[in-house]
């Protein structure tokens, strides 16, 4: 028998209470995993989407929304001639409700722009020209909308034909409806407007030159902001707000976990007053009693953390399959996030056990003889 046998026996003596406490912590940790994983996944999806399109710099005005504000397409004329700029592509993106999908990404691209090049046809064909009333569907979007080549699709007031299913090599691309820019400008009443400029730099351009280019664009284009691809999401006010909200909600859930563990450990200490007094009477140091209580609460945290990571990972995947957000999100459940979540749970356990441990160490051993 080792000291940890004593710790383990303390936990299994009340299996239902231990189980419920572990469940309480795991719900908090699952919230951390799910919310933080989703918000990180959102930015990562955009970043991989940008990389898949071969975009180095993005010009947009994210403001406080998740979709950039539209601005005039003439912006492209102001930046196309700048040094290191190899190519540009004006894009109008929006998150809208299309048929049975409550929210889906629509990405309308300047005809002939490089942002079409990464799309690999799985079935069907590419549009003949910018005026053909047709769309391509990313393969996830096709699944979500339950469409195949030859079907019709209603986007707001416009009825268009599905002419191809594509693989865009990124979650965001595969979850999108892709069409030529003029069609979507007309459908949404945004004639002559775009909200993103994808910009590709020459292959030999250094990171420093890219930064300098961004500064130049920012001085030339006050209606947008140029940032290195991917950063435009993390840089946006809306993303930061969403991330703060996800951490805030997670912390609340974790706080509930702290109170749960503290309650359990206090109950344990009260219930085991005589047992702790016997241990003291038999010569256990107060420090060992404190360690015993802290290890028990840390173990509750660890078990809750592991269970929470499992629940969160599975839950977020199930969530990702729900019709309302299917194809929109790819949670970023990195090893780092999972490890941090378990570490938070263990810390919750230790912190929650401090007061009960202190209480237990103040007990007078003579109480063991009183019954």
């Amino acid at each position, binding site marked *: 028998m*080792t*000291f940890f046998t004593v710790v383990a026996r303390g936990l299994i003596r009340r299996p239902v209470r231990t189980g419920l406490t572990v469940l309480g912590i795991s719900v908090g940790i699952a919230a951390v995993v799910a919310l933080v994983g989703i918000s990180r996944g959102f930015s990562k999806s955009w970043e991989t989407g940008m990389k898949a399109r071969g975009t180095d710099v993005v010009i947009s005005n994210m403001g406080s929304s998740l979709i950039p504000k539209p601005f005039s397409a003439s912006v492209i004329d102001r930046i196309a001639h700048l040094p290191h700029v190899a190519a540009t592509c004006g894009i109008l993106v929006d998150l809208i409700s299309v048929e049975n999908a409550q929210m889906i990404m629509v990405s309308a691209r300047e005809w002939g722009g490089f942002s079409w090049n990464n799309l690999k046809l799985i079935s069907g064909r590419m549009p003949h020209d910018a005026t053909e009333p047709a769309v391509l569907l990313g393969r996830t979007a096709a699944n979500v909308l339950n469409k195949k080549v030859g079907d019709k699709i209603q986007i707001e007031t416009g009825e268009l034909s599905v002419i191809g299913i594509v693989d865009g090599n990124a979650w965001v691309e595969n979850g999108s409806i892709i069409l030529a820019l003029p069609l979507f400008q007309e459908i949404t009443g945004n004639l002559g407007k775009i909200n993103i400029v994808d910009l590709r730099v020459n292959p030999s351009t250094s990171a420093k030159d890219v930064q300098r280019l961004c500064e130049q664009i920012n001085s030339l284009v006050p209606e947008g902001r140029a940032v290195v691809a991917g950063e435009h999401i993390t840089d946006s006010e809306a993303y930061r707000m969403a991330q703060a909200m996800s951490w805030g909600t997670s912390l609340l859930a974790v706080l509930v976990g702290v109170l749960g563990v503290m309650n359990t450990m206090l109950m344990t200490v009260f219930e085991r007053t005589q047992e702790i007094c016997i241990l003291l009477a*038999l*010569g*256990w140091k107060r420090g060992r009693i404190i360690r015993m209580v802290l290890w028990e609460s840390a173990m509750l945290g660890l078990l809750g953390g592991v269970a929470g990571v499992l629940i969160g990972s599975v839950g977020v995947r199930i969530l990702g399959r729900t019709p309302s957000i299917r194809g929109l999100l790819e949670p970023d459940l990195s090893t780092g996030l999972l490890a941090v979540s378990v570490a938070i749970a263990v810390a919750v356990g230790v912190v929650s056990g401090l007061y009960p441990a202190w209480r237990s160490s103040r007990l007078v051993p003579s109480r063991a003889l009183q019954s």
Partner: protein
Amino acid sequence: MSENIGAEKTEEHAEKSKSERGFSDPTSNHLSGPATTLDTKTGPSLPYLFEAVGIAKKFEDGQVHALRGVNLRVMAGEFIAVTGPSGCGKTTLLQMLGALDRPTKGTLLYRGNSIPDLRDPWRYRALEIGFIFQAFHLLPTFTALENVQIPMFENHLSAAERKDRAVGLLKSVGLKNRLDHFPAKLSGGERQRVAIARSLANSPSVLLADEPTGNLDSENAHLILELIARLHHEQNMTLVLVTHDIGIAQRASRIIQMKDGRIVTDSESIIVRK
């Protein structure tokens, strides 16, 4: 239940432990010495194991005087029965001797060291004292074998050594077939034998037994008393046994009777007077 309680391994362990404890043996005839902590490795040699001078205990509300000026001297190896009616202070006296509680007044020494001033009271309780309680106080979620190992955590023994020693102790009290039984599956007599084995875990110098047969039928009570008496005899342990049963008290070499928190008769004093 007939194996020698003081098995070779136990004795070896006892010698090793005692040499590490830093307690001096009473060999000279000084009546009192400086009240030092037990960490003093070379303390004065004193004749009395325990010496209590005017110890009193008032409980927190200040209304109950459990002890009212108790004077007591105990030699090493004595078998003392403390008897008296309920509430006379027997158990409180035992708690003071075992450092489970502190007197509110008076001096209480163990081998010349002040018990209330011990820097490491846990060490004293773990290594010098073995407790036997009326209600056994075994931990219900641990087997007999594990219960006996509980006090050994404060000793420098490996897990395997703890287990071997606990097996030896349980065998010595006749429970070799009950090692993996939980307390709920043991009879009252068996539980008390586990508690006795536990009290010997660190080869203490003193056994403090509080009504050890109080919860047992007469047959088991007899067996337990025989076992405790044998322990005292074979290991020359000091035994302080609290009982309200005068029949049990008469087995001791010295009987102390208490009433209202005071010692009213002490057979040693009677012998001395005679």
